[in-house]
């Protein structure tokens, strides 16, 4: 899949009029749009058959234009919000049409007042989503016996240690085999990690909970859009982002 990080720059480029980049970006983001739409509609959609996917993709494109960095919402989360609201509009209209045979002329896009309330709505929605997401993450962590308090205690103070532990977590998250092992046993595959990262066992042991938490976050970064995009994960220089 696409990287969660560094989307902001790409979006900025696209906004400046780089059409080719926009095409590429839309293409690369199709899986995300697909997943988000499917989740909202609660059924498996199909490209080329369901209107919802087309509406979602149009909304995604719209989100690129409307995206503002100063809102403090990561792009993907914002795009998802836009897509969901557009899909809601779509369903409402469908229902109205089905019920009264009337089409709602007053589209929110044209109305300034509607636009403003929509912004407020988006903001509120983003906030709510973020809160939910964090709570979800906490529940997930508690499944591994990790709490935020633990993380406060054991998160490495030193920048370099943190970086190396984050890289280890990323390594762990990107290796499906290792990650499934973590999920199954709920404990770190220390031996393998030691070999992969070259970190000492002691360091890994000390940052055990931190690595677990970060690996979980990185692995399911699409579910925890807000959190994962908030983190500035160190990118290993030699490694490209593995595509799924």
């Amino acid at each position: 899949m696409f990287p969660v990080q560094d989307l902001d720059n790409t979006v900025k480029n696209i906004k400046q009029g780089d059409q080719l980049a926009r095409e590429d970006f839309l293409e690369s983001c199709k899986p995300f749009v697909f997943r988000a739409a499917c989740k909202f509609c609660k059924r498996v959609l199909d490209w080329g058959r369901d209107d919802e996917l087309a509406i979602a993709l149009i909304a995604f494109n719209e989100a690129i234009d409307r995206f503002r960095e100063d809102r403090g919402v990561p792009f993907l989360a914002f795009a998802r919000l836009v897509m969901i609201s557009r899909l809601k509009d779509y369903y409402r209209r469908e229902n109205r049409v089905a019920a009264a045979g009337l089409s709602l002329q007053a589209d929110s896009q044209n109305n300034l007042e509607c636009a403003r309330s929509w912004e407020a709505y988006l903001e509120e929605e983003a906030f709510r989503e973020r809160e939910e997401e964090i709570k979800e993450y906490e529940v997930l962590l508690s499944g591994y016996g990790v709490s935020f308090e633990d993380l406060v205690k054991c998160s490495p103070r030193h920048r370099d240690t943190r970086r190396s532990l984050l890289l280890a977590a990323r390594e762990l998250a990107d290796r499906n085999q290792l990650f499934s092992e973590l999920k199954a046993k709920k404990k770190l595959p220390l031996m393998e990690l030691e070999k992969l990262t070259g970190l000492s066992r002691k360091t890994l042991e000390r940052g055990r909970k931190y690595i677990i938490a970060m690996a979980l976050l990185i692995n399911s970064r699409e579910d925890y859009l807000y959190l994962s995009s908030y983190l500035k994960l160190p990118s290993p220089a030699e490694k490209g982002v593995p595509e799924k």
Partner: protein
Amino acid sequence: MKTQGMIVKVKSNSCIVLTPEGDYREVPLLEGSRARVGQEIEIPQRKTLPYFRFLMVAASLLVVVVLAGRFFPLAPPPAAAYLTIDINPSVELGVTSSEKVISARGLNSDGEQILAKVAVRGLKLQDAVARIVSQAVTDQFLCDLDDNIILATLTVEEDQDPLVELDVVYEAIEKPVKSGGILAEIIIEPVTPKMREDATKTGLSTGKFLVLKKSGEKGVPVSADELGGSSLGNLEKANEISIIELIRGNGKDAEEKNVEAVKNAKPGKARSGIYYDGRKKAPDFEIITGGKTIKAGAEHEQDKNKSESPGKSDVKRRDNSKFVPGNNDYFSDNKNNNSDNKNKDKDNKNNNRNDNKNKDNKTNDSDKNNNNKNKNYNDRSIKDIKNNDKKDEKNYNDSNYGWNNKDKSNNVKNNHNDNNGDNNTRSKWEEKESWIRQKTESTENETGFPGTPLRWPLEFRHLNLHPSK
């Protein structure tokens, strides 16, 4: 650097935030500020030092320890020097560098006895010495018939000035001895700490060990047992040796040493002791103090010159009586008259003391009519009665009189009082201090001089009758 953080958990008065760097931190929440999960907040910079609490605990513990050490010193400071006194009771005092006595031990049974009676710990060295000596005087370890030798040693590190000036120690010993009216040889000798260690091994006091060693060098047979058991005076008698000579290292060597000491006055200081023979060599004694040699004989000659007809008895008396260095009252009148000639041999110190004493002669009279001092006067009055016959002689002598710092008139007054009224007190007093009188009388007979020096009752030492105070 201000960092942002996303709140991931809100607690009662703090919250846990996640920074973009991936650091989880617990941040205290301000009162009244509403925090919501997911909210982005600024993380306040740490105002306090990291581990500040631990530092505080460590610091306060340190303070407690330091203060406790200051107020309750667990281990007393080690003694910087040791002073031993051998009268017959041998006592060793440990002295700190601030001249405080921190340890005292008796080196024989008499010494322990004395220490049981006087508390010297914590006193200044000279006070402690004065107390011990005066206690020895009251306990009759020193009485003026015996051959009294007071041998003091002070440990002095090599190539260093003595911790306490030997003069000071000398004065501390001399004062109670003098006020007790006792003839004594006083020897103060600096020794090396090593000497003290050796002495401790043998179980003797440093002074006696010194005598033992010197006598060994001299070939005089003195056994350790002999030394330990008897007083130095007895020893001297028994073996017919002079301890002063012994310790000074008599003969040519000593004289040469003295000459050298005189030549280079200061460097000699550390090594030379004070030797004063109060008994035998009164007219010609020498004090060697810091290389200075004081000849008392010279003064005597001048005295003779000055006082012609009464001078005979004067000289006679002086030759026989106790001349104590520092007690220069004896010559005070004479000296004031022709001071130019005489002072060349004298210390400044002694001069000063003279002046003081003369002053006191004039000023102290009023103080002394105090009832408390009746005893004191009684003491004198006995003498006065005896002296009545020879009053004319006494008139000019009295003010010269070393032990009586009072005016003649005053004496006479007291004399009268006693004669009129206080016969009871006197008889009481006579009982109490009869032995003193016997002694004084006996000396009187020997010398033919009625006014032998009187003993100040020791109870009145604290009244500062001594004019140098």
